[in-house]
């Protein structure tokens, strides 16, 4: 045993985390900040193509976007934020059925969103090769779709763990649901912005 270990009773000293945030939360801060910058780059390309390159009608004729069908899909995704919140509130009250139900519903709604988007892609009538419009449209919505897919993977892990009896009402016992929940809400926020700017305006 060296002198350092002896001084601390044969085990290392307790880490002094004097940071303002928990290190795991700090990780998700940096991750989401980098994601915002990534989406920012795609939005910049989109607005450049729309405002600086195309001075006439947007979307350029003869292309059209399924605004109302995607509105329904948007409502599905926004609903999944509510079910995610329900899941977290349930585990905080030690309601495991609520946690499992909330996570399963969130997963189902997210999967439905992704399948509808995939179906929409097959019926749009244009591809990423068609003008800057097509490239930026598929770039933005595809990037978001990838994030939904990652979110679904995280939700699947959390769902399986919750079915196996993991997680508890204490704050440090359900961080494995809390962090995917934050990520899922971020995915929702980005879609609200994407839908409004790309489909509605």
């Amino acid at each position, binding site marked *: 045993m060296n002198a350092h270990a002896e001084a601390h009773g044969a085990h290392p000293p*307790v880490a*002094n*985390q*004097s940071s*303002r*945030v928990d290190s795991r*939360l700090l990780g*998700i*801060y940096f991750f*989401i900040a980098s994601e915002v910058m990534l989406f920012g780059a795609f939005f910049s390309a989109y607005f450049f193509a729309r405002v600086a390159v195309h001075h006439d009608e947007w979307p350029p004729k003869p292309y059209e976007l399924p605004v109302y069908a995607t509105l329904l899909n948007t409502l599905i995704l*926004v609903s999944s*934020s*509510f079910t*995610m*919140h329900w899941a*977290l*509130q349930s585990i905080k009250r030690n309601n495991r059925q609520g946690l499992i139900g909330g996570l399963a519903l969130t997963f189902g709604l997210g999967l439905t969103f992704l399948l509808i988007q995939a179906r929409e892609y097959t019926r749009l009538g244009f591809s990423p090769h068609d003008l800057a419009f097509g490239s930026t449209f598929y770039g933005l919505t595809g990037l978001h779709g990838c994030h939904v897919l990652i979110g679904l993977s995280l939700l699947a892990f959390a769902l399986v763990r919750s079915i196996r009896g993991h997680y508890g009402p*204490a*704050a*440090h016992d359900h961080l494995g*649901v*809390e962090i995917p*929940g*934050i990520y899922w*809400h*971020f995915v*929702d*926020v980005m879609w*609200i*912005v994407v*839908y*409004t700017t790309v489909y*509605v*305006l």
Partner: protein
Amino acid sequence: MRNPVRTEAEAFSFVIAVLALFVAVAVAGILAGGWIALVAFLVLGPLVFYRYFRSDPKTVEPAVWERDRSGGLHRILVVANETVAGRALRDEVVRRAGEDGRVLVVSPALNTRIRHWTSDEDEARAAAQARLDESLGALAAVGVDARGQVGDDDPIQAIEDSLRTFGADEIVLSTHPPGRSNWLEAGVVERARERFECPIAHVVVDLERERSLADR
């Protein structure tokens, strides 16, 4: 101040705020065109985000820390700013510590906001250390086993940092009297009681009154 990525509940509230904002922007865009939607976003965006970020957090998770019960010692965490050397605080600490109490005095390094954000805190830390030394000297003189440290300028954060290494059984928070205390105005005592699940005593130290009494 709220932080949309601190907890899921905060993130959910942020979704609602963004949803409300973009519904308004979309309506403006549908009724009056894309440029009006941009104006709506530029006008409403700061309002919505200001309201969101400046409102109180929806939920505050209680802090959890390990309380070392070995030896049966009573551990008291004392947090005080300029009042750290006040007589009223010293008397209260002496009374609570008794004969075998252990005391950790934390003096937050009070700083201006601009200096805080530019990491210019040497002066603030030096001033806090000087106040702390004076307080520790006074406590030692009356036989209290106390040690001290300079803490974060946010008193709640200073408490949380201290609890990671000092498993306090109770916390004593000292402030100036109402009307002269920034901490009271910022609701520090209420926030501490909400966040830390242990007895929290609030001691008001009137330094001006103590000085005038001493001058007589």
